[in-house]
């Protein structure tokens, strides 16, 4: 057991820190609005130009071939200096690992570099009005068009995050309506500017237009936009969703940074001297949230040690997803309690503490137990696939 990083890794940390401290933008508006998204894309391009957008990817695709440990270090530093949300995340963290695993060489060359450079911006199209937790219930269809060598899509996706701002969507479409529920689906990548695609933004709980509905009317996609085999989309999709539950989407750096900010908020509130009983009564809650973030960091170090030695997380990634999403809710709730009467003020209010970031964080955290497979579904997975309880 050795919980220290090597000198080379620490040098990597120092280099990342130096660049990030000099370049991370402060006070960007939410990336889930049209204006904010554009500013985030500018930041993503700057990250890319300096070689920091996808550190763990091979150099030929725009990365710097960093190890998993270095990736974790980068994430720690990124969030420590207050780096903004990654609006490229659906591409770089979710689709890219799937392309690395299932994509053809042409697909890798065509999509990965433009994803790294934020020239292509990807959203995910899984959910449909009648298919949420029961994803295998999707109805959007892609029918064969032999003449043109591709597929014709009809149907609707919904809750597509940042769909109104992106130019590509990936997701599952039913290609064999006769097949059993989990077969007969194909993983397709679809340009949102294709003829027949209509995107309608939908306002989220926090007031941002972060959701979208995507309608497909006779949209043609060529065969080279199929990822993995035809009718084998379910297995390919499971690779993406396990990235979403686990390590790649939600690295511990983000929660550790939030926990440090919570400690700092407690100290500022205590120093301000107002409502001392309330501030005092929240000491243990602050400590608990800080420890949960730290526990998530430690669990990740153990998981990555396993990965480096060839042991994958498997169904245990469901435990990870429950843990980070619930710790995020509690952490933000504690912050709001520290703010007391100021908690309800949002970013457009002059009196909001920290620019209203805590209410915003709370609202976003509340979606964590819903997206990426609800926590009820994750608990089913833990019971059945980690503990081995009977399905029926």
């Amino acid at each position, binding site marked *: 057991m050795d919980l220290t990083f090597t000198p080379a890794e620490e040098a990597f940390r120092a280099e990342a820190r130096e660049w990030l401290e000099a370049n991370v933008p402060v006070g960007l508006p939410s990336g889930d609005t049209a204006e904010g998204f554009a500013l985030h894309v500018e930041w993503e391009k700057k990250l890319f130009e300096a070689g920091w957008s996808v550190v763990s990817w091979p150099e030929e695709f725009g990365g710097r071939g960093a190890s998993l440990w270095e990736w974790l270090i980068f994430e720690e530093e990124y969030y420590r200096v207050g780096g903004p949300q990654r609006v490229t995340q659906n591409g770089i963290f979710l689709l890219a690992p799937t392309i690395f695993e299932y994509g053809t060489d042409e697909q890798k060359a065509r999509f990965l570099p433009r994803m790294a450079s934020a020239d292509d911006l990807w959203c995910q199209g899984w959910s449909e009005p009648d298919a949420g937790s029961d994803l295998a219930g999707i109805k959007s269809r892609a029918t064969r068009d032999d003449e043109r060598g591709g597929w014709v899509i009809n149907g609707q996706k919904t809750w597509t995050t940042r769909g109104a701002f992106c130019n590509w969507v990936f997701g599952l479409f039913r290609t064999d309506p006769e097949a059993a529920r989990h077969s007969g689906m194909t993983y397709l990548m679809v340009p949102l500017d294709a003829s027949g695609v209509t995107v309608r933004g939908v306002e989220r709980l926090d007031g941002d237009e972060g959701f979208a509905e995507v309608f497909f009317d006779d949209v043609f996609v060529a065969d080279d936009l199929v990822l993995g085999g035809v009718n084998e989309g379910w297995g390919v999709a499971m690779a993406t969703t396990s990235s979403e539950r686990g390590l790649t989407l939600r690295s511990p750096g983000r929660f550790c940074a939030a926990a440090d900010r919570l400690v700092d908020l407690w100290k500022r509130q205590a120093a301000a001297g107002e409502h001392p009983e309330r501030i005092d009564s929240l000491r243990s809650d602050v*400590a608990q949230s800080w420890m949960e973030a730290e526990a998530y960091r430690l669990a990740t170090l*153990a998981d990555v040690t396993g990965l480096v030695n060839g042991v994958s997380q498997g169904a245990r990634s469901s435990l990870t997803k429950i843990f980070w999403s619930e710790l995020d809710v509690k952490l933000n709730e504690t912050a709001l309690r520290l703010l007391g009467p100021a908690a309800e003020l949002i970013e457009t209010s002059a009196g909001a503490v920290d620019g209203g970031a805590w209410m915003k964080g709370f609202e976003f955290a509340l979606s964590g137990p819903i997206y990426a497979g609800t926590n009820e579904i994750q608990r089913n997975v*833990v*019971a059945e696939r980690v503990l081995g309880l009977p399905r029926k």
Partner: protein
Amino acid sequence: MNFAFTDDQLLFRDAVAEFFANECPPEKVRWSWNDEVGRDASIWAALAEMGVIGLTVPEAFGGMGMNEIDLLPILTEAGRYAYPAPLVETVAVVAPLLAESAPAAIAEKWLPGIADGSVIATVQLDGQPFVNDMHIANLLIAQRGDQLFAIPAEHVRSTPQISVDGARRLFSVEWDEADAELIVSGDAALRAADRAFDRGAAATAAQLIGLSEQMIAMTVAYVSDRKQFGVPIGSFQAVKHHLADAELKVSFARPAVWAAAYGLANSSADVDREVSMAKCFASDAAEVVARKALQTHGAIGYTTEHDLHFWLKRSWALASSWGDAAWHRRRVAHLLLDA
């Protein structure tokens, strides 16, 4: 970075686990409840033979000279089998304390006996009202303010206190300084007592992990077998979610306990915080797991004829000894917020 045990550490742990599986089955725990002394000296002797009892004793005194990273996985196994003897006190706390802080004469007097299994030691730090296993101990290490003493057992007057865990043996003790040997005093004694407390807390946390894992295993087996409405009760979602919550708690307490072991072994600057986090999470986890285990067993778990209660009661006892979750959470709060 390598947050895992070595193959040798795991082999040692597995050997001890196999030993407990054979020598400390649930019937043995039941016997401990019912027998007046409740301690099988042959198990202690065999553990000494295997090197477990002398694990933390320096090699110069006949021990293995190992540290908390080697020890805590073994204590997890002791917890899993609800082994009821003072491993935490003797191996995790007293041996390292004597090795680090005692003058040579005292160290030479006691450490070789600990290593060969002939000396059983127990401990009382300030703030700990009761002493574990005074009835079989040869040596008590006790704190009085800024002094630490070694008191041979024959000079200790003890009164039993009855724990909810019938396999535990707790005592109130009295002794006179005239009969005690001074180990260390002043700031050095306070530092030694702090370190001893951290070691006891982390070692107890490791036992709680094993207890929790075993309660989950027993419950998974039970709910997979027990049928109601024509199906195993483990197929009901309410039961599944109870168990998923239990597994969640242990899964995120475990790495905190290993990190505390690492912190102790490497004298980390943040060792107090690391240990308190470990004990806080392990205590919380064991309490949640115990509740879920009892609830999903139904009435059978509510009898003393079924074995589950041995684990429930050990969990309750250990969750609140060496500082309960709330105490350790407050300590972390102090370290984070008042710095």
